[in-house]
């Protein structure tokens, strides 16, 4: 079974990559010198600075610091975030939930819309729906996410006042419990439709902004692979069997066109992850990305390390899963090993 070997091979490489990443990340945050800055307030004497460095073990040699950090990571101690004024692990879950809620809703929009759009266009190749889709695709790849977000804010928030920013209305937020940290889910669990509406309402613009680019990517891929599949013999064969176009498209062409699209969805995930940074800045979304940006500006190395490491691991995982799904879906691949 090539598939199993393939997965195993990947699983062996994975930890090596993660270690590699962790080293890169660590050295990144250290090359610039000691990350003590975030723990300092102004007007501190060098003696006081040394005290602080000692407190966070920043006076030890780098290998020791790396070991300590790596050990901490494995034991779930990610250090103290100066930006959040709390241990990273304490703030992380909520922010993660916020980011995931945003990323996944955007991803959901992107995948469903992208596939639909791609199919719609691919099936009507070189007719106007196709051209429109291509415009969407190209513009989606070129539109600066942060600019799109700002334009939407200018229109719907500042001028029309239709859309809110942030993640929820503080009073409504306080009105329900938050077991999952995903406000939409929490609201549903609480059976509170008002809260759910509020959550969705706050989610709409950011998700749209974030999803646009991804939609474009997926739609583009879906379209081209569908066009390719439609040129395959088996499509004619299906027609020759007397299948109606609807089935030729859905049952035969689209099914196979989806396979290459899956890989793109994997990449799109990375795209979404990156996108959350700017999207969260613009829409005041209390997630990881915003935290990261904040930490970058204020030199909160503990957070930066956590974020970069976490996202890359996530990214690696997702891509592994996607590849496996791909290999599983596309029997020709398995055949070819």
């Amino acid at each position, binding site marked *: 079974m090539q598939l199993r070997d393939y997965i195993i091979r990947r699983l062996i490489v994975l930890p090596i990559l993660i270690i590699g990443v962790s080293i890169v990340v660590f050295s990144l945050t250290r090359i610039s010198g000691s990350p003590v800055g975030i723990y300092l307030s102004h007007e501190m004497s060098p003696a006081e600075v040394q005290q602080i460095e000692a407190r966070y073990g920043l006076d030890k040699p780098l290998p020791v610091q790396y070991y300590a950090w790596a050990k901490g990571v494995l034991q779930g101690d990610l250090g103290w975030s100066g930006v959040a004024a709390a241990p990273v692990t304490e703030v992380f879950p909520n922010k993660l939930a916020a980011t995931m809620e945003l990323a996944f809703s955007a991803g959901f929009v992107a995948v469903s819309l992208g596939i639909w759009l791609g199919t719609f266009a691919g099936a009507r190749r070189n007719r106007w729906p196709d051209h429109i889709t291509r415009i969407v695709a190209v513009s989606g790849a070129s539109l600066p996410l942060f600019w799109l977000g700002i334009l939407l804010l200018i229109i719907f928030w500042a001028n029309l006042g239709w859309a809110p920013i942030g993640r929820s209305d503080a009073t409504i937020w306080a009105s329900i419990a938050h077991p999952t940290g995903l406000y939409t889910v929490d609201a549903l669990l609480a059976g509170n439709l008002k809260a759910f509406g509020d959550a969705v309402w706050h989610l709409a613009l950011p998700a749209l902004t974030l999803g646009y680019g991804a939609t474009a990517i997926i739609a583009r891929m879906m379209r081209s692979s569908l066009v390719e599949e439609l040129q395959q013999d088996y499509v004619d064969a299906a027609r020759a069997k007397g299948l109606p176009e609807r089935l030729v498209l859905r049952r035969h062409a689209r099914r196979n066109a989806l396979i290459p699209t899956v890989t793109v969805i994997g990449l799109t995930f990375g795209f979404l992850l990156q996108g959350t940074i700017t999207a969260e800045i613009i829409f*005041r979304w209390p997630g990881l990305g915003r935290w990261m*940006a904040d930490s970058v500006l204020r030199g909160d190395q503990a957070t930066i390390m956590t974020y970069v490491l976490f996202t890359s691991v996530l990214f690696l995982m997702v891509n592994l899963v996607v590849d496996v799904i791909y290999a599983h879906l596309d029997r020709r691949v398995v055949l070819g090993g």
Partner: protein
Amino acid sequence: MNRYLSRPIISSLCVGAVLTLTAFQPAFAQEVNNPGLLVHAADDEPTSLDPAQVEPGEGGETVILQVYDRLLDIGPDSPELIPSLALEVPTVDNGLISADGLTYTFKLREGVVFHDGTALTADDVKYSWDRAMEMDLPEGNAGILSDYIAATAVVDDFTFQATLNEASASFLNSVVIAMVASIVSQDAVKANGGVEASVPNTFMSGNAVGTGPYKFSVWNRNENLQLEVFDDYWGENASLDVRIEIGGDPDVRVLGLRAGEFDTIETDPSFIADLEGVDGVTIYQEGLLLEPLHIGMNLNIPEGALPPEDTIPVDFFHDARVRQAFNHAFDYDAFLNGPLAGYGDFNPHYIPIGIFGYDAASPTYNKQDKAKAEELFRAAGYWDDGFTISVITEEGNLFALMCLVMKDSLEGLNPKFRVNVLAVAESVFDDAHAQDPLEYAMWAKNADPAADPNAYLQAYVHPDGDWGQVHGFANGYADPEAIGAMIDAAAVELDVVKRAEMYAEISKVLYDEPMWLIGAQEGVVAAHRDWVQGFTMQPLWPRPGFKFALFDK
């Protein structure tokens, strides 16, 4: 301090969330929103709530001021000291200050209870002060206590005594009302980790148990922090609970106030324009912050430490003419009318307006004088070849803007002059700023607020003071000893009139020997909904300068 940050990054989540469609309907804006709750949009997040761990001017101060009491306080509308936990303000006359001026006695109010229910005794006061001094956290301000205090003593349950190292005119104003001197619940601390030298107490940095009008309720980090009215308060109870929305962008706060979702906001003077003429909103603009915005000049640059592009010699600022030239070249109007939108004033070196000892008559740099600047640069011999100098500052705030104004001023004066503005991350700046010797020729920030002139002069003028040593003022003053002596003398002068004259004298001398470029003294501005009653600010209070307990709506 990030209080000026206008970057989108440092901004809150919920702030915007409340800006709903309905919020934009003027009808809504007229009636009172969130009755019984004061929603205050603050600028930056506390790093800690522990009086012993927070520096003056940091976010935590906002909360500590409301939750903790100190022995003395300053009234809402005067710089005069008033009793707080202590029943009387010690003076030589009422005998609470010993004749030699070394021993201060405080008679404590009885029946005061902490938020955890325990009663306040002199023991708690001693414990609180000793605690701060023992912990002596580098990020805290305990130094100011230990500098002055030789010993603390409990006379009886309700009498507390402090003995000073040397007689001081500024003890009450600089120490007793300082945030670090807040009285904390002994039991609460003991129950949660107690006191350990130079190790922060995690309970105290995330919670607060004081005797103040407000109880600490909950802190949703990066989102909001909530305070409840403390019903057993010894004084008059506060009438509104408080929710502090943390760190929204200035413009988001402005919009939130306009929409009536916020009752009071901290804001940048430059955003006041967006609030003018908005009905339902009152702009408060009185007095000035006691934190002059200044650019430091380093007279103690190590060889080869400067950034490669800098062409200035290490003794660049040793020449008083150069320092004067910078002070003349700076475009004060541009800074005041641009970034500060006209809210602010200029103070002489180095006593801010509003502080005892400020002398309106003493000469002040407050107008760009290109001719004079050119003349001085020529005299110093830098005019023809020009120079390149770097100034380091936190990126994205008023300090950076001040640097840009200086850049434009000098480069406009002579294209051969080049000023590189290194706007860096806060942490990088703080790190660089903490070096001794400092590896940059110039840096921009603002002064630490204080209630007594001596604090400023010690920190920013005295050759043996903190910055005097780091910046090597001794290399620049014509007669360092003389200046040092003048400041020390004024510090212990108990006769108010004499003392004032001495400070006026010092200001005159410093005009010719400036060690800073003081961009401006920023105006105190804030805005609130009309429905907020009893709104008042007091520049002598720790930031943000108002007490929620006095407000109603």
